[in-house]
Structure formats: C-alpha cells, structure tokens
C-alpha cells in the first residue's frame, strides 16, 4: 500500500497523478487501468478541493492506493462537509450543445469507469473507496 497526504488545493493533484503512475509501473498494471483510475481520482479530488471546505482554510486529504486480490483500490479521506457522490443527481447526457451542463459529469465518470464505489461517513470524515478490477 502507498499513501499520500495532500492539501486541499488543485495544484496538489499532480502529486497523486505521479504516485499512481509509479504505483501502476511497480505493479505492472495495464495503462488503461491506470488511466481510468487517474480520471476518477481527478474527478473526486477536484470536487473535494473545490467544495468540501467552505471555510477556505487549509485541510489535508489522504489518498491510499493498494492492490488487493487483483483489484486496484483507491481510498480518499477528507474532513470536509458531508458529500456522498453516490447520491448526487445524474447529468442530462442527452442535452444539446447549447443546453449541455457539465455539473455532475465528473461523478458520472467515476460511477461508469469504476467497478465499485463505496462511501462512508465516519464521524467528521468522508471516506470514498474506488475499486477497479485488474484482470479484464
């Protein structure tokens, strides 16, 4: 398992990209698998950095990566406001260019790219677990 703590700033997300890339190389993961997880983590973490902390103060976000029984698992833990992405409304994917909004799209990507997503609120913390099977 590898673990990284980042601050709730968008510029910090590059550290997670690098970590996941290195993790993927060490575990000989397929590029497609790493890419899908990178997208999901970008969506989740950009949400957290933008919306989780209305106090605009500095907060830590913990990201853990591990391989367990052929499954790539990412855990994201933050002390932000309660947010369960599994309950977020779905975007209207049929709207035309002029009317199309991208609100909710990030979460939609997470749901569709991952094999499994679980959310847990423990005390004052959100914990999201993303899982992606390594063998197809």
């Amino acid at each position, binding site marked *: 398992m590898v673990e990284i703590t980042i601050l709730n700033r968008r510029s910090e997300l590059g550290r997670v*990209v690098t970590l996941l890339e290195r993790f993927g190389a060490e575990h000989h993961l397929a590029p497609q698998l790493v890419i899908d997880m990178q997208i999901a983590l970008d969506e989740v973490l950009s949400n957290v950095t933008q919306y989780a902390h209305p106090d605009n103060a500095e907060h830590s976000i913990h990201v853990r990566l591990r391989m367990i029984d052929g499954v790539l698992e990412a855990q994201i833990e933050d002390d932000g406001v309660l947010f369960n992405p599994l309950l977020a409304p779905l975007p209207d994917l*049929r709207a035309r260019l002029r009317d199309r909004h*991208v609100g909710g799209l990030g979460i939609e990507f997470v749901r569709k790219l991952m094999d499994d997503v679980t959310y847990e609120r423990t005390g004052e913390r959100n914990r999201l677990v993303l899982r992606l099977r390594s063998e197809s």
Partner: protein
Amino acid sequence: MESAAGGKGLELVESQSDGVAIVEPRGRIDSMTAGLFGARVAELIRSGSHHLVIDFAEVLYITSAGFRSLLIAGRLIDEFKGKLVLCRMSTEIRRLFEIGGFSDLFEICATRDDGVRKASWP
C-alpha cells in the same frame, strides 16, 4: 505547463492548414490543465480562428474539466458561425466521449486531413 514527455501536464502544439487552425494537446486534459487549454482555445477563436481542429492523437485522457472547456469552445465557435472538428481519438478517448454523452455533440473525424476538410466548410 510541463511537457507530456515529463509524465505530467499538457503541452499545446499549434499549426495552420488551408485556413484552418489546428490545436494538438499532448498529455492530460484534467482539472489542472483544462483551464489553460480552454483559455488558449477561446483566445484562438476570439482572435479569428473560427475554423478549428482539435487533434486528440497525443491526448492521454480527458476529464470532465476538459469536457467543460470543449463545450465552451463549441458554443463560442457557434456564436461566430464557425466550425469545430475533433480528430484522431484513441479508443480510450472515444470511450470517454461515449460515457460523457459527447460523441453526438461534436463532429469527430478519424484523420487530421478529414478534420481540416470538414472544418473548412462553412
């Protein structure tokens, strides 16, 4: 922005062909790079490049932040009665367009030549 070769970020390569502007993003279009990508494309459109091809051959992936930039670019081009064409997508990029429901919102060509031809039409 760091180069794609460095494993991070996004690089934009720009060129012209038959009066069509071509932008080739190389690397990741994610929450960190989408702002700069969108700003540059919007700047090109506002400064007169109303016929534009975005070449996806070297794009590793695109997240919702990148799609937001593309939507804005598409609307801006429509305002100028121009034409935006996307080309050379990998199957992975194509899949992301499908998942996001963007395949029907943009004209997508297999080759850059096709893209330039389509974009130069009114």
